[in-house]
Each structure stands twice: as structure tokens, then as C-alpha cells.
């Protein structure tokens, strides 16, 4: 692989007042034109990871234990808030799950998009407004000239998400972070939004980090996948590797819990139990309290940092599953 556009190494942080990391030793690399999907269930740390990368976590509430970011050849620490703020909205942009709450209800959408342009490009109001109009057109909003002067409440959920995308992409960012951008939308609208993001990505060559809980979305758009559980990446690899050669018991459990649209009816497999709260995490593998294959060592010692090659890594003492069976037999 050529030099990645964005590389993150060993990102760890915790909230003040807690003695356990909410995200632990997270590393990944993202190339131009690639999509990295971070997939996991609620509370796995996928959204706070996005916020950390964007410098949006309040500095008095988190303690970073480590984390080196390399963005287009420049390297900086994740705690370097000033550095990140100068790129935020410009070279790195983010869209959120709730288009309803992430737009300001008191301002016209044209002004909200123009604000992002004016902030980072030293250009006049006219030019910024022209750019806003161009962006609305690009994200497929009908009658953009009128929409420019409308307020968020006058738009439907899908349209609001398009406005969010227009705003995020107004400054041609190199990296787009999308946090569950389609979760609040209906499936037919979700399909439109995913197509739009893919289209814009091909046009601009940006790298996309997509945070989602939906394995269907992952299969459709990912280049690489990081499966997260309780703040740790348990499996990381290309989309082929994850779907054709899943090795971590959690990845397999998650996949077999998803009801399928095809094939014979079968009883759904589950992941037993629920995620322990952050204070009750086992010191070893955090999945060990729910893993049907857990051995005593699992709860005591963290799995050696990801085994496997650089293009497919699994954090499990016994992965792949069949090895586990043999060892324990």
C-alpha cells in the first residue's frame, strides 16, 4: 500500500473519573478513495472515536493515553486540539446521525453552509453563497435556489441529511467521517444517501470513515472494516477478509445474529448476555464474559496485540475458531 491518507496509531483514552479506557489501542489506516467502516453495537466506542479524531471531545472530560495521527504526511498527537481545529470542517469533515439536531433551527440552510465556507476560505459572502448553492445542487436537492433560504424544519429527514453532506463537503475535505448517517432514515432513502456519498467519493477521491451498526451497509460500501467491541478493535481487515474469513468469535456472533433476507428459515443465533459496564470490564479480553469459547486465560490476559498479517488482524487468544476447538479438546 502507498502511504495512507490518514493513519491512527494506538489511540487510547478514558473519561475523567474512570479507571478504564473507553477506547483502547485503536489503530487503522485509510487511503484516498477508500472507505473504512467501524462497526459495532451501542457503547462499543465507535462514535467517541469519531469525535476524538475530529477534536470534538471536551478536553476537560477526557484523558488521552496515547494516539498518534498521521494525516497526509503530517504527524501530530490526538490531544493537539489547536491543530485539529484548524483542519476541522476544512480538510476533515463530519456528518452526524441526527440531521434534525445537528442543523441550527434558527438559521437558513444557505447561511449555514456558507458559514463553513467563509470560515475556512477567505472569500466574500457572495462567493460563499454561490458555493452553498452549488453544493445543494450537487447533493441532489430539488429547486436549490429556493431551498437556500429555507429553514431546517421545512425539510424532510432525507433532505436534511443531504444538507449536512453539502455542508461537510463544501470545502472539499480529504477525509469525511460519517457517524451513522443513515440510521434515522427509511431504507429507500438510506439507499439514496449511500449512493450519493459513494458518488461524491468517486468525484473527489476523499477517504471516508463510516461508523455504523449495520453489517449490510458495511458489505455494500467498505474497503476495510474494523469490528469494535467495548472499546477495542477485535478484528480488522479488508471487507473480503471480514465477510469470507471472519475469525473473532464476536464477529461471527454478530454476523449470525443478523436475520437474513435469503436462505432457509433458521433460528437466529445470538451473542449471549449484554456488554458489561465500563467499570466491570474483565482485565483480559473484554469479550470474554460473553464468549461461548472463553477459557480461563481469556478473562485474565488481554490477547496479544492483533495477530495475523497487516491486512487481517484478530485480537483473540485462540483465533481462528477451529484452533480454539482443537486446543481445548
Amino acid at each position, binding site marked *: 500500500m502507498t502511504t495512507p491518507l490518514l493513519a491512527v496509531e494506538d489511540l487510547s483514552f478514558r473519561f475523567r473519573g474512570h479507571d478504564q479506557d473507553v477506547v483502547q489501542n485503536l489503530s487503522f489506516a485509510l487511503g484516498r478513495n477508500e472507505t473504512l467502516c467501524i462497526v459495532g453495537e451501542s457503547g462499543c466506542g465507535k462514535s467517541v472515536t469519531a469525535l476524538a479524531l475530529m477534536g470534538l471531545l471536551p478536553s476537560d472530560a477526557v484523558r488521552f493515553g496515547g494516539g498518534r495521527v498521521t494525516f497526509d504526511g503530517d504527524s501530530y498527537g490526538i490531544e493537539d486540539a489547536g491543530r485539529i481545529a484548524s483542519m476541522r470542517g476544512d480538510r476533515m469533515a463530519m456528518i452526524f446521525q441526527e440531521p434534525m439536531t445537528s442543523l441550527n433551527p434558527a438559521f437558513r440552510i444557505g447561511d449555514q453552509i456558507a458559514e463553513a465556507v467563509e470560515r475556512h476560505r477567505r472569500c466574500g459572502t457572495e462567493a460563499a453563497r454561490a458555493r452553498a448553492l452549488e453544493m445543494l445542487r450537487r447533493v441532489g436537492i430539488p429547486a436549490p435556489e429556493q431551498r437556500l433560504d429555507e429553514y431546517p424544519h421545512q425539510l*424532510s429527514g432525507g*433532505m436534511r441529511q443531504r444538507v449536512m453532506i453539502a455542508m461537510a463537503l463544501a470545502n472539499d475535505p480529504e477525509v469525511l467521517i460519517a457517524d451513522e448517517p443513515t440510521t434515522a432514515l427509511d*431504507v429507500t432513502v438510506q439507499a439514496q444517501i449511500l449512493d450519493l456519498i459513494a458518488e461524491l467519493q468517486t468525484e473527489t477521491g476523499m477517504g471516508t470513515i463510516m461508523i455504523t451498526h449495520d453489517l449490510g451497509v458495511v458489505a455494500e460500501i467498505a474497503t476495510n472494516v474494523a469490528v469494535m467491541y467495548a472499546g477495542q478493535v477485535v478484528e480488522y481487515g479488508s471487507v473480503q477478509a471480514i465477510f469470507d474469513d471472519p475469525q473473532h468469535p464476536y464477529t461471527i456472533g454478530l454476523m449470525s445474529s443478523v436475520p437474513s*433476507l435469503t436462505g432457509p428459515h433458521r433460528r437466529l443465533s445470538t451473542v*449471549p448476555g*449484554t456488554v458489561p459496564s465500563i467499570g466491570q470490564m474483565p482485565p483480559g479480553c473484554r469479550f470474554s464474559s460473553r464468549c461461548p469459547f472463553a477459557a480461563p486465560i481469556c478473562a485474565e490476559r488481554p490477547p496479544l496485540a492483533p495477530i495475523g498479517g497487516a491486512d487481517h488482524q484478530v485480537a483473540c487468544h485462540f483465533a481462528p475458531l477451529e484452533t480454539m476447538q482443537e486446543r481445548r479438546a
Partner: protein
Amino acid sequence: MSDVILRATGLRKHFRTGGGMFARQSTVRAVDGVTLDVRRGETFAIVGESGCGKSTLARLLMRLLEPTDGRIDFDGRDISDLKGRDLRDLRREMQFIFQDPFSSLNPRMSVGRLVAEPLETHHPQMGREERREEVARLLGIVGLRPEHADRYPHEFSGGQRQRIGIARALASRPRLVIGDEPVSALDVSVQAQVVNLLHDLKAEFDMTLVIIAHDLAVIRHMSDRVAVMYLGQIVETGTTDDIFAHPRHPYTMALLSAIPEPVHGRARTRLALSGETPSPANPPSGCRFHTRCPFAREDCAQRVPELRPAGPGGQHAACHYWEEIAAERPDAGTPPAHERKPQAAARFALYEAAIDRLNDRPETAVNAGANDMTQQEEDRR
């Protein structure tokens, strides 16, 4: 005894909105002429996107809302006009599971009281001791433990709270349970636990289940028959197998093709819909779907389609041109099952076997929570 347990005929619910100082009054036709039969012992699913009126329909069927027009029969008896005591007696037979396990339980009541409350209402003759035992039994049935009765809702995870909601619904021993998106607020791994639980309970208690949902994959898993709704009306209905194998209405086709499948490297042709659902306050003329339908003909804007037979198995579709569209789109159904790579298939089999071993214990009290899990672990050693 007829085999139809619940029948709706020409059901309508119109809401008046606005009419204040600033807004002009308008009528939202949330449910606009729905006729359906739910058969005894089946799982009947009502599917549609937001704003299609599925939740309103569920509340109408339960008599939580007054219909504007139309009739509902439960077990051969007209329940459209029941009031007071009769309505309360009906609730014993018909119960509701709500979508949001966070807001549907009173946070100031202990789990024991939450589950005992419907018992007090519907089985007042029950003594205190008997009721306590019944609560413990119900908690066990849904996979919680008797000592959970003393705790409060906030101490539980979303999946566990949904189990509490289910225990409450089961308390009066209803014959029909209506679930409004009962699993959609849950994470997939927990969702699977609750789907399995509902499946087991239905068999165990000989219940009929009506499920409202937007997730077609969940519906395929749970239900025997399906009704697809669009803008307050049913556009297609039939057995789950028929609907998924050969959808006839273009909206059903679009819904099916829009779902991203968790399978890598399979290109599916998507039937893209332009735009979004129009407002139910001002539905399009003729066929309500014509503004988004990729197959719309000129007269679709004028003529209102009725549900008409669209297959041998009782499938019905409300589309003037389903025959032509189906011929044009022979592959509109779900594609054949995806074959996993052998190594992956072997691992999935190992995983499922391990889960089965864990589940292979008396009681449905498996998978209830992390605590129970540790308990099971201890038991095994």
C-alpha cells in the same frame, strides 16, 4: 370457532391538525381504508416506512385510538364501540408491546410492581402471595430472575427492559399480542435474543402475534403473513414466502431491493425510488405511490387501485399493472441464499453449536443478561 381472530374492515383514522392562529387546518389521513384479517395462531406483520400509518393502525386495532370510520372484530365480536368495563376486559385478551423500552416503563416502579400491575387489574381475585409467585414465574419465562423484581428499570439494559415489557404484556394471559417495533430499538445481538424469545413464547402460550416493523429481514424471520403499507393503505399482502419470493407491488419490490444485504461482493440491481413519501395530509390522487413509482403510467394518477388477487397463495396487490411489472422484473424477489466460504461456514457452525450447548438448558431463561451468563458459566464448571 372461526379461524380469524382479528378483522379490520374499512378502517380509517384521520387526525385534524393546525387550525390555530397561524396554521391552516388540515386533515392527516394516517390510516385510510384498511381491511385485513389476522388468523388465529399466526404471526402477522405490518411493514412500512415512517409515516405510512403502521403504528396508528396498531393502536386502532388495540382500541388505544378511536377509529374515524370502519369496524374491528375480535373473535367474531364487534369491538369498535366498546367502552369502559368492556374495553378493560378486552385488554385482558389483547396486549401491546411498545417500541421504546426506555420510555414505556415507569421509572419509579420496581420491576415487581410493573409486572404485578396488570395482574391487579385483570386478575383482582389473586392473593398477594399468589401474585408474587406469578410475577416470579413471568420473569422466569422472559429470561429474567425472580430477584430482579426488586430492582428498577434504569438498572437494566435495553434488551432486559424489553423483556420486562413482554412480561407485563403476558401477565393477563392474552390471546393476541400486538408489538409495535418490539425489537427495533435494540442492538442486533440483543435483537436476536428477543426475536427468539417472542417466537418461543408464541408457541408456548398459543398466542397470535401482530408485529409492526420496518425491518424486512426481521419480518421474514418472525412472520407467517405480511401486509405492506404505504401512505395509510395496504398496497400488498400475502404469505411471507410469497411476498419475499415474488413481490407484485412496485413499492414492495423497491423496499426489498433497498435493503443492504450483509453479503460481500454480490451486486444486486436496486429499484431506486426517487424522492420521499408525500405527506399523508395531502396524498397524491389515483394510486398514492404514482409520484415515486418507476413504472407509473399516465392513468395511475387518476384511477385508484384496489387490492386484487396477485397469486395463488392469497397474495393481493393494489396495482393496476402488477402483471406487466412482474413480467418486466422477474428477479424482484430476494436472491438465492448466499453460500459462505467453507472455512467461514465451518466457523459459523462451531459458533452455533456452542450457543446451542449454552441454550440447552431447561427454562427459557437463557441469554438473559451478563449476570445470568456468569451464573451459567459457573454452573458449567
